[in-house]
């Protein structure tokens, strides 16, 4: 990644981004242990899309899989970025919340169960508006209830990225893992351009987008805990390592004073460019050492 030249290692790697959501989930489990719950043949699909002339998907774009990772119980919930931009609807949100709540119930019974969220999502599905918003609220509560017992890992590999309400879900996770191709942010580029004008943000400028939302910037800002290559084996190992590490002593979202002081220190009367933000982030990192 640091040197994306076509070396032998680079060519030999198995891309994670190129895998379907189902295969992404599967490749994180100890070999052969990943079992899908509420799969496509259970046909738990959105009742709202067909009414609006949108073809539904049999799993509502949300894949729930259970098995072991590094010998520990784990549930992986993956969003299919290709279906409706991975956006959260009533059903996909309920699948995610139910999976997290079942994991919490197992933890309360003494069975340590970890959770991994593969977030490739534009946020709330507009066709399901309020139900999607309600789902995001439920998801956040469920993550916070679970993260006391076992780590909840958010992984955004790309290339859809993680935006809108679901970026808040990533924000309350125990660990955030990204690739340089992944993006993480509340308002996506096109939303910012639409709301504040092209002078504020040019959504057609890909290098600007990645230099603001991209995995490298987020990692250097301390908003992501691990930056990994687009390599299925490396990503699976990172997830295993974080699960082995367990619940962090303090969650990022509990450090309100730290992040509030950073926002206060930022002069918002002028436009900051990504390089300046990056420089500032590296200074903040030094101070935290």
């Amino acid at each position, binding site marked *: 990644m640091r040197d994306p030249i076509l070396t032998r290692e680079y060519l030999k790697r198995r891309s994670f981004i190129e895998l*379907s*959501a189902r295969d992404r989930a599967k490749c994180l489990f100890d070999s052969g242990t990943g079992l899908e719950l509420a*799969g*496509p*043949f259970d046909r738990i699909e959105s009742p709202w899309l*067909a009414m609006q*002339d*949108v*073809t*539904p*998907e*049999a799993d509502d*774009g949300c894949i729930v899989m259970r098995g072991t990772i590094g010998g520990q119980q784990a549930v992986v919930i993956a969003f*299919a970025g*290709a*279906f*409706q931009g991975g956006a959260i609807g009533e059903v996909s949100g309920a699948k995610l919340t139910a999976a997290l709540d079942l994991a919490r119930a197992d933890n309360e019974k003494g069975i340590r169960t970890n959770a991994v969220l593969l977030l490739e999502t534009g946020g709330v599905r507009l066709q399901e508006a309020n139900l999607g918003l309600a789902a995001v609220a439920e998801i956040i509560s469920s993550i916070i209830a679970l993260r006391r017992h076992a780590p909840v890992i958010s992984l955004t590999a790309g290339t859809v990225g993680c935006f809108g309400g679901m970026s808040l879900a990533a924000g309350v996770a125990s660990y955030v893992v990204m690739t340089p191709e992944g993006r993480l942010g509340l308002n996506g580029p096109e939303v910012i351009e639409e709301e504040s004008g092209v002078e504020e943000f040019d959504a057609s400028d890909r290098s600007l987008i990645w230099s603001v939302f991209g995995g490298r910037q987020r990692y250097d800002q301390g908003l992501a805990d691990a930056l990994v290559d687009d390599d299925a084996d490396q990503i699976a190992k990172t997830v295993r390592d974080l699960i082995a590490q367990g619940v962090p002593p303090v969650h990022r979202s509990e450090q309100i004073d730290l992040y509030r002081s950073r926002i206060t220190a930022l002069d918002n009367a002028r436009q900051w460019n990504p390089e300046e933000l990056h420089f500032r982030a590296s200074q903040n990192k030094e101070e935290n050492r």
Partner: protein
Amino acid sequence: MEQFEFNYPAKRKVLKKSHVGVVGSGDLEVLLEPGKDAAASVRIRTSAEGFKNSWKAVLDRFFDRYDGAAHIEINDAGATPGVVFLRLQQAVEASER
């Protein structure tokens, strides 16, 4: 969105179900499972309206060779006939693996 159904004669029993694809732009998902009786049935939901004849042509060609008594459901987001045919073959391959 348009929905239609097609039926074809079949000879072989289908033993295993399979699921391939995703309802993403230019793609589709195929759910293939054992049918209820000794015939094949296909239910299609597609976001691209007005292509019933194209669907029939692709399925006629597919069932020229495939004789499994399968119930197939297709959720389509505007896949081209070539992609539809490949996904159907992929679903059969996955169900016979």
